[in-house]
């Protein structure tokens, strides 16, 4: 028994060590591959340059501003759709639904998370985009609106399940006290339960942000891929992730273009790292309370 206990401990220790090593290996390699770009292209030129022509013969340009803004727009668009839907389902599941209805609604929302992203992309490209194009009489349906809707649908289950967790940890006596004071159910939810679960909800939104900004397949298929700042929700855009995915396969290993794609990976990593850090801190604060 002693041996079993010990070997189990060692095994889990090795498993943990392995994932830590993998994380640091990945971080190290994207920095090693990406940083040499900045010997040739200044950081300012890279972040604020407005032209992305990495393979142009005489004068390649490596400005990711339009791609960065594309990523931010797509992600904010997704959150505009996902926050009300996700939070709404969380409130419904946690506060309003009868236990039986909850048994159906909860797995249904979570099922959204089980759909592979390529299926979302296919749906967006083949069904949603033509529909949007005809509905608004546009020249193309591969635009910010379609991207936001699809990305938003993907983020809904994250916000819904994490917010629901936060709502359900609000102690029952707080609700009862509020109702006893004569507040309606709506007043109880908005005035007592939501504020009490605030940090958990903010954390879920941040997690959703991280998911949306890192999503690749959907934006590759639905965003249209124009390296411009979309002037309206009906214009095409090109986020950072799809640039890496579309160009990495064909690039010459080791040249400046290859380095610039890794430099984009560094930017993405920093964004998601900071988001996750903030989310962790929000949760930590809540746990310490």
């Amino acid at each position, binding site marked *: 028994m002693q041996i079993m206990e010990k070997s189990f401990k060692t095994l889990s220790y090795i498993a943990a060590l392995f994932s830590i090593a993998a994380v640091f290996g990945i971080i190290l390699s994207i920095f090693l591959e990406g940083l040499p770009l900045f010997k040739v292209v200044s950081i300012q030129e890279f972040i604020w340059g407005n*032209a*992305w*022509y*990495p*393979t*142009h*013969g*005489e004068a390649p340009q490596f400005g990711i501003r*339009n791609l960065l803004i594309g990523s931010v727009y797509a992600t904010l668009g997704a959150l505009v759709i996902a926050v009300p839907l996700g939070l709404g389902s969380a409130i419904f599941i946690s506060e309003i639904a009868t236990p039986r209805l909850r048994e159906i609604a909860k797995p249904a929302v979570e099922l959204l998370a089980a759909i592979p992203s390529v299926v979302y992309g296919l749906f967006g*490209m*083949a069904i949603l*985009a*033509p529909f949007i*194009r005809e509905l608004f009489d546009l*020249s*193309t*349906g*591969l635009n910010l609106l379609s991207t936001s809707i699809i990305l938003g649908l993907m983020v809904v289950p994250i916000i819904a399940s994490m917010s629901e967790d936060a709502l359900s940890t609000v102690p029952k006596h707080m609700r009862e006290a509020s109702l006893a004071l004569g507040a309606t159910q709506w007043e109880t939810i908005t005035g007592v339960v939501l504020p009490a679960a605030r940090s958990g909800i903010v954390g879920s939104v941040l997690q959703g942000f991280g998911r949306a900004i890192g999503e690749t397949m959907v934006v*590759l*298929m639905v965003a*249209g*891929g*124009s*390296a*411009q700042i979309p002037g309206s929700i009906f*214009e*095409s855009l*090109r986020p950072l992730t*799809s640039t890496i*995915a*579309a*160009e*990495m*396969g*064909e*690039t*010459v*290993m*080791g*040249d400046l*273009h290859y380095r610039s794609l890794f430099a984009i990976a560094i930017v993405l990593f920093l964004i998601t790292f900071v988001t996750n850090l903030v989310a962790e801190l929000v949760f930590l604060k809540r746990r310490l309370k």
Partner: protein
Amino acid sequence: MRKFTIILLILTLAIGFAYAKKNQITCSGSTTVLPIAQAGAEAYMDAHPDVNISVRGGGSGVGIAALQNGTVQIANSSRPIKSKEVSACKAKGINPTPYAVANDGIAIVVHKSNHVKDLSVAQIKDIYTGKISNWKELGGASLPIVIVSRDVASGTFEVFNEKALNGAKVVASAQLLASNNAVVSAVESTPGAIGYAGLGYITPEVNIVSVERVTPSTSTVKDGSYKLSRKLYMYTNGKATGDVGSFIGWLQSAAGQKIVEEQGFISIR
């Protein structure tokens, strides 16, 4: 139960070893060349059961890098190898040698409802650089042009950029899609769209536009009168010998080129 597991394990290992004994050829690279390599490999393996060919995509750059690292015997490429890649290979003692396996025309395609039938190279350049933005300037309906292009790293883009655009920059509002299929399906569903793709990927759901009054076809690509054409390559380390040599030789033969044509490409013979 345990005995059964052990027997099963030995059997799997035995089969594994039997497989390993086969002559293994790996090739990877351009997604444009992929259908040729795949169909060619299948037919070749049927005739030569002792050879096993595994084919992967990834892109021209990935294929050449894999050749350079010695992980594949054949790199498929939809563009001639770049001088930078040659020197990287040489540094590792690899000597990339090209074998043309097919001809390909890059067809300009528009939506089925579009009445524009012919474009000059100069007009194509004006469209892709943003100087012409409405079909009415080209004798079509009054409809904004939706420019569909390939991602700038693809072999198809490179050939198009060199032959049609003379190296000019594609306007930033152009949609950049990641595969030939994606371009064709985007053009198919977008009335104002113009796009380009390898001939093997063109479906009847889009209209092909002639370039300088020449329609891409077997004969116009072969004799070079169609401007936007290219060769597709397989690269090997040094002269292809042994099974690799006989596979590529077979692919270049009449029997192999028949498969190339079945995949929608144009024979080199």
